[in-house]
């Protein structure tokens, strides 16, 4: 992913599919909003070690192909309900590695989406330095 433009083409569809499953509202984002989301994610990834970054991106790639075994289609090609059920099954997996992977990707997506000032107003979050005297 990149903070300065659209994600590279091979990455974009799978990440988009994952992000829209974690936060359905993200599907309605325009290119500028996507760029903002991805910029925050990019920064967060930059703070992680190379190994963690590599694991997360590799895991995102694996997630795209895993459904082929069961549904005969890649994750990006599943309908929203199947995507959701697939990821929910993984987060309840017996393998901590799979649970952690889903947790990491969802957490990055939440950061990208909910750390934007625009999201504050979407969810009506109003904390303000002026506290009780806020406008």
């Amino acid at each position, binding site marked *: 992913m990149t903070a300065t433009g659209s994600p590279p083409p091979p990455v974009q569809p799978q990440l988009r599919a994952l992000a829209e499953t974690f936060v359905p509202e993200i599907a309605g984002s325009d290119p500028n909003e996507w760029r903002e989301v991805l910029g925050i994610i990019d920064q967060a990834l930059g703070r992680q070690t190379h190994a963690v970054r590599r694991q997360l991106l590799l895991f995102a790639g694996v997630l795209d192909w895993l459904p082929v075994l069961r549904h005969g289609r890649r994750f990006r090609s599943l309908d929203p309900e199947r995507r959701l059920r697939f990821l929910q099954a993984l987060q309840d997996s017996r393998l901590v590695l799979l649970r952690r992977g889903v947790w990491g990707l969802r957490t990055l997506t939440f950061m990208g989406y909910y750390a934007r000032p625009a999201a504050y107003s979407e969810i009506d979050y*109003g904390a303000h*330095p002026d*506290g009780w005297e806020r406008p």
Partner: protein
Amino acid sequence: MIERSYDVVIVGSGAGGGTVAAELVPLVADGRRVLLLEQGARLEPAEFTGREIEMADALYEEGGAVLTGDGTMTLALGRTYGGSTSVYTGTSLVVPERVIRSWAVPDLEYEDVRSRSAKYAAQNNVHLLPPEEINENNRLFVEGCTGIGLVAEQFPVNVKGCRGSSLCNLGCPNQAKQGTDRVQLPAAERGGVEIVTRAEVVRVEERALVVRVRSTREGDKGGPSEWAPGEYRVKAGIVVVAGGSIGSSALLLRSRLPAELRRLGEGFTCHPAHILVAEHPSEITNDVGHPKSFYLDRAEQEGYVLETCMYFPFVTAKNLTGFGPDHSRLMRAFRRLQMILVLACDRAVPGNRITVDRAGRPVVHYRFTPQVVTALVQATRTSARIFFAAGAERVHAPSANPPLLEARDAERVNALIDERHFLPGKISVSAAHLMGGCGMGSGPRDSVTDAWGRVHGLPWLRVADSSLFVDALQINPYLTVMALADRVAEKIRYEAADLLDGWQAGDTGAPDAV
């Protein structure tokens, strides 16, 4: 490498380092040179914006989300002028007597810890907020506790001029919180202690430290370091390590000191916690007012503590289990959310410890013991009852599957919230009370330091932070850290003449190329 020389060098500016710095002002008055090194930056008041990611990046190590070795828990460590005291909520409790007694550290008496805690409670303006400053998120907690027959207690907090921004954990934008950044560090600087920010201590050598001073990067918050960027070798008659449980342990581990410190890094505890959320039918005041005004102490009976809390959008989203439409609906009910922080009182056990990797970076090894899982699950059940008793119509319980419980489920919380649903890696668990690693005791076989923070076998080296704790404190740790740091400073003052006899901090402060 540039050389400098001081009589005393303190590493870290949080509750421990800041306290030691202020308490060593009398040494400065006696002509000694005292230096404090802080890895983080010093921010201007206007830089505290309350915006979640930018403040987390500026004030915390790794944005407040340091992962444990197996990736199943995130740890929050302050990294700024004032350390974690600039990012906590100011809650200030005196450690229970039973905890200090259970530590069984020779020469550490409860009464001494209590009286020193009282000293800092007074110094840092610890008091109870008046009822009119308590928001509904807190009041509902009290009501809910009362409703199920439990008694919530009010947190004493160290604020002055609190405007109720609710942004404590992102650094108070009104500088109301009286952490070391507001009280002890300014006093130390006024008294002649030199403070250098953006200064990372690479390792400790025999009466010296290797220090890397970083330059500011574009977009960084905070001013430049007081020293020019570069590598320094700082000679020190006495070194006081106060970089927090993880920072201090890792620093000493990678320093390969000439002493046998077999217990170094061991005894790590952290009060593993998660955030519980409940949805009320109508809006409540939650994102305004002091966020953490009440608690329920069940440590002695059931091994957990519940605290009121209110977090920011991303942290809240992260801490809700799951994702998708249900998660989104809950996030969009933000104004109607009540929150409780659940903390397990973990115990020091073999295996939960701090090590360093080949690059010298800390690695925290932590597994959730069955006792911790039981405590978190039981705490979640109690919280669910409190939420419903307070009028919530829906409760999000991470240890339930599915995690959303409706009001009609109120009688079945024991069955629905269950240990089998506590899946590490799925459930968000975080910790901010990082303790142990340089524990106190009687000798090198059982500890790293004595009761005065003196590292066994190295009289010039002291530890003054939460790494001294022998086991979990079972309450918020800051006042106890300050009390122990006060003891460390006192012993240094008494011993300074002997320790520094023949020692000369002869440097003028000018950079001398070697």
